[in-house]
């Protein structure tokens, strides 16, 4: 058995129990499961389901390893208790369902999905310790994880990061392919940690970008293919406070950003006990919550298999539609985007001053300076699936999406702090609270979606679904009818309606459908 380590206790009961669908059955082997840990027998050796194991890992970290009494990822299965406190009417909510700490949850989901997570926050708040724990969860010895961690510093070279050509080969080699490279060992790890990445010089950041983005390293025409890995980066200040500005492409590769919240002095006793016992949590991670490579592979498969119901996906579509549209950026319809204005180097304030007619307070698109990329939307889906899987759910719920959204979009959707929304009384707080703002804007988008009754009355969805059924057997008359339906809808929308982001995207879809039917009609005439 080894030492029965109290530190190594893992939650035995289901960490997020769900009602069984089948009639209750009892297993006589339960008789020997209880407060005392025993050597695993054959049945137990197979281990719990992976979602349960993931939750066990989460609860071990929050209960034992990291003192993080912050439950900012809130779930409710009934009306939560809510209280208003202070002069600014701050709201404190006591969630009615199992809720989580983003500082532990998001890194864990990153581990399960092998994505990239950035820890931000002041020094000494547990950012590096959390990243270390993730390395240990992947089965690496603590010492190996420590040694493999890359510490950003202003003199860091590409060779420091990736490796060196062997000096003897540099002298003796006749051809470049004869030069052997001593690759740095961290490149082969399945958990990669870059500490203080914003202290890395720009040129070295570019080398890092290749590894992060394309999963290989290159020196002197030699290529090292890295395994799929979860990445953890830390920064004391992700908004430019580092030694070097972080190149945009590198920032764009980061999937989620979590903030290390401040230490609550009420937990000082725990801190003191830890000092006195001289125990480091990362050195006593229970083996039951260590994942093998095959298990993480399987985790990814199982997470990807969690379906996103149509109504949940539709709300994200509607939300994403709000932001890219910029009516005054171009004359041609397709280029009326914020990206067009950005590429042209237009002055943002001058551009927004040109906007007229729309209600800039009501238009959610006015709150941001950019739109959402495809990569961001993919990341949103992956993390929403991962959260649903983590919670033991079989499908993604809207709340899963709502909870991961601020951490995925944290650095991706840039607020326009001059927008009327941020100067409206009550909203000033969102100038500094990025997570709160993103949650609010998603809630506003969903409310708008409900108001427009798009679940039941969405003609574009109907037309698109009709098209997706295929053109085989569609007659000329039917094609013309569909073209007329599209034109009629555009005509209807053009009668005095203001243009908003979601309408712009819908009109692009209508144009797309119209074009496909036009081409089909032309082909029909040649038959």
């Amino acid at each position, binding site marked *: 058995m080894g030492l029965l380590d109290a530190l190594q206790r893992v939650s035995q009961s289901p960490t997020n129990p769900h009602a069984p669908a089948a009639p209750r059955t009892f297993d006589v082997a339960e008789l020997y499961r209880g407060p*005392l*840990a025993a050597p695993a027998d054959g049945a137990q050796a197979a281990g719990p389901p992976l979602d349960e194991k993931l939750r066990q890992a989460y609860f071990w970290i929050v209960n*034992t390893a990291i003192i993080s009494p912050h439950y900012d990822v809130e779930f409710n299965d009934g009306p939560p208790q809510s209280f208003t406190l202070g002069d600014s009417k701050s709201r404190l909510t006591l969630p009615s369902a199992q809720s989580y700490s983003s500082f532990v949850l998001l890194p864990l989901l990153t581990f399960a999905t092998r994505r990239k997570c950035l820890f931000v926050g002041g020094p000494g708040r547990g950012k590096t310790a959390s990243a270390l724990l993730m390395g240990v969860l992947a089965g690496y010895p603590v010492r190996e994880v420590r040694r493999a961690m890359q510490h950003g510093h202003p003199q860091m070279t590409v060779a420091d990061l990736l490796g060196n050509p062997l000096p003897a080969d540099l002298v003796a080699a006749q051809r470049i392919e004869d030069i052997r490279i001593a690759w740095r060992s961290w490149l082969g790890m399945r958990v990669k940690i870059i500490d203080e990445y914003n202290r890395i010089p720009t040129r070295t950041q570019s080398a890092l970008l290749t590894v992060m983005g394309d999963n290989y390293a290159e020196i002197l025409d030699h290529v090292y293919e890295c395994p799929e890995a979860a990445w953890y980066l830390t920064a004391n200040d992700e908004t430019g406070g580092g030694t070097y500005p972080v190149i945009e492409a590198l920032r764009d590769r980061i999937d989620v950003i979590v903030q290390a919240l401040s230490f609550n002095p009420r937990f000082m006793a725990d801190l003191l006990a830890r000092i006195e016992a001289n125990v480091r949590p990362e050195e006593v991670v229970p083996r039951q919550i260590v994942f093998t490579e095959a298990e993480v592979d399987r985790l990814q498969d199982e997470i990807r298999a969690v379906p996103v119901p149509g109504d949940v996906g539709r709300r994200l579509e509607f939300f994403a539609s709000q932001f890219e549209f910029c009516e005054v950026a171009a004359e041609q319809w397709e280029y009326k985007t914020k990206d067009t204005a950005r590429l042209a180097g237009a002055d943002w304030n001058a551009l927004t001053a040109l906007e007229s007619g729309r209600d800039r307070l009501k238009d959610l698109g006015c709150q941001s300076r950019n739109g959402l990329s495809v990569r961001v939307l993919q990341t949103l889906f992956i993390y929403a699936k991962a959260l649903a899987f983590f919670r033991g759910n079989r499908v993604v719920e809207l709340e899963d999406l709502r909870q991961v959204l601020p951490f995925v979009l944290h650095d991706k959707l840039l607020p326009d702090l001059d927008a009327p929304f941020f100067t409206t009384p009550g909203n000033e707080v969102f100038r500094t609270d990025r997570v709160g703002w993103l949650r609010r804007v998603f809630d506003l988008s969903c409310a708008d979606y409900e108001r427009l009754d798009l679940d039941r009355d969405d003609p574009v969805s109907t037309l698109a679904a009709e098209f997706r059924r295929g053109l085989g057997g569609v007659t000329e008359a039917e094609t013309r009818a569909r073209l007329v339906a599209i034109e009629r809808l555009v005509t209807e929308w053009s009668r005095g309606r203001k243009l908003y982001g979601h309408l712009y995207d819908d009109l692009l879809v209508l144009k797309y459908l119209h074009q496909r039917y036009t081409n089909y009609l032309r082909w029909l005439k040649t038959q």
Partner: protein
Amino acid sequence: METALSPAFAAFLRNARPELNARFAEARRMRPDLDGDAFAAFLRDTADPLVAAVAAVSPERAADVARAAFELGLELVGQGLAGPAAREPAVEAGWRQVAPAVASLVAAEPERVLAAIGNALHRLASTPGARPAEWLAAMEQLGPRCADANAFLALGQVAAWRAGMAHYRAGALAAADALPPALAMAALRAAGDGWGEVRGWLAADPWYDPSALARPGGPRVVARAGAFRGFGGLFVEPPVATAAGDHFIVRSGDDGWLLTADAFGATFHRATDAERARRGPSIIPPGVTARGTTVEVNGARLDVPEIGEIAGVAAAGRTLALTSAWTHAVILVALG
């Protein structure tokens, strides 16, 4: 204190003192309520006799057993399951009564056997309707007849069923098959007949009692399960039962319980939301009627005047559950 300990345990404590002190300090950090005096009492009163018993049969294994007892003891005392103020004395009683009786098995696999004894008694003690003392007595008496830890654990499963854990019926029956027939018969206190025949009856009839010399026929009251909460039971008001497969869902106030029952006992398990939500009329087998205070099964009458007028009837397999406004118990009737 140390002078009173057995030589084997005293030697272990002396040799491993720095390490054991560190382990205790670590455990106390995780469980600030871990009481040093209670743990010392546990070591003296429970671990020491066990180590002495093991030293008598396998002196070379005494230190390993002592280490396992120390480690598991930290958990038990830390959780309030052992020591002078233990909230469940049954767990420590198992270590005092059963473990020394099977010292050779403990010597072979100390962690596995000791944890199994502790966990089994904890489960028995925390299952309403189960009888941990009966399990203790059976294991103390029959444990020494087991050839190895696997047989001991299988015996424990059968004995748990016999001690009232009716919900383990199917699994325990399979476990009994793995035991020598004489041991299986002894564990179930079966009288006469061979194991094959007893097993057949057990599989066919949940109300077959292998210790009874005769098999009664016709409808009969076989159990009264549950009681008023004020008297230590589960129910705040007279319960109502509905069938759920081979079991019953019993509702009382806002609470719901799954009731499993057979000749060896009846146990209640907190019903899940889905089980509690299950509603609908129970299907009563043809030929069965309940009216007033009387149940009639294919012409055979059973009067139960002590519960007053029967208010609810549910049937699951060969069992009828009767409830009334006069009692906080569920009356179980075997259909014969």
